[in-house]
């Protein structure tokens, strides 16, 4: 086993998250898929930090986590307010800007 295993696993997890974003309709589940993609990128960063022997990768992964936390708070608040006005959490129903 080499570090390549971690990198390939991260790539596969990222892909699964991307497929989820494309396939799912529930806005909250789409959001969870984005979280999975962020997590897989973090795994890549940590792996490369170990491979190159520098701590910077871990610092960047830490910042990704902070930004993800902020993003989740705001995103879920947006989903809440969309739900309040449209009574639906489906991404297909929020289409007022379509035409």
């Amino acid at each position: 086993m080499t570090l390549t295993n971690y990198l390939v696993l991260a790539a596969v997890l990222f892909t699964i998250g991307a497929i989820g974003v494309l396939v799912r309709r529930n806005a909250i589940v789409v959001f969870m898929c984005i979280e999975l993609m962020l997590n897989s990128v973090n795994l890549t960063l940590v792996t490369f930090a170990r491979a190159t022997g520098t701590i910077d990768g871990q610092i960047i992964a830490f910042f990704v986590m902070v930004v993800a936390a902020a993003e989740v708070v705001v995103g879920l608040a947006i989903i809440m307010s969309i739900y309040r006005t449209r009574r639906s959490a489906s991404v297909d129903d929020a289409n007022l800007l379509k035409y």
Partner: protein
Amino acid sequence: MTVLAAAAGGAQIGTGETVAFWLLAPVALAGALGMVFSRNAVHSALFLVNSMLALGVFYVIQQAPFLGAVQIIVYTGAIMILFLFVLMLVGRDSADSVVETLRGQRLAAIVLGVGFAGLVGAGIARATEGLVVTGLEGVQGTDGNVPAIARSLFTDYLLAFEVTSALLITAAVGAMVLAHIEREPGSRQTQRELSRARFLTERPQTLPGPGVYARANSIAAPGRLPDGGIAESSFATGVEPQDVDEMPRPGLSETGPRGRAIEDSDASLGSTSGTGQQRGETPR
């Protein structure tokens, strides 16, 4: 610990780490796939927690114990709980529609995904074939992981760290602004208006609770009318309809094997057997 010791060996990846990887990688993958393909959003959230815990262990194995702890505390502890809160607020029953808005989108997404994974995976596998594991002993020294991160965070990345605090406060204020419901001053109804409005409706009294005259202590059991019928308005919302074992009514229980004891307990409560039994109604 053996895993950590094996990982700390330097350029060599130990057996412990290999075993841990091959045990946890399927767990992480299964969690991710389960999240995408489960129809219930709560199940999706729990699958994602599973996946994130496996990733947290990977961080710890890969000489990042601080990130592993943060992953478990912040991601699975805080963010996923936030997700579950919003799921419960929005309504668990807001399940995904199976209707495809764009025809063939699902198939196209899966083909695209498999192709992407193949290309990126193969590219990474080729590019990092002889990747040397330098290890973090050079930067960490004997201090360990947390002092090394702190040293870097408060020197090289100090500006980014400070900007992060601005980001966090902005996010908190933004969430409050978005979630806040604006009310016109004076539009709030007084107690007097509320009670007048209530008594003008057809049902001024409260709805019967599920426990009224019920013969089971489950919230899923509906309340009973005095004649033994089911009070339709007492069905609990948000509970899936299900069969609940209820105590038989005293008159009917005489044929049952446990009739005696139940009858006794009913006698002490004061029996409510009445018209329903005379009409031959059989309670659920």
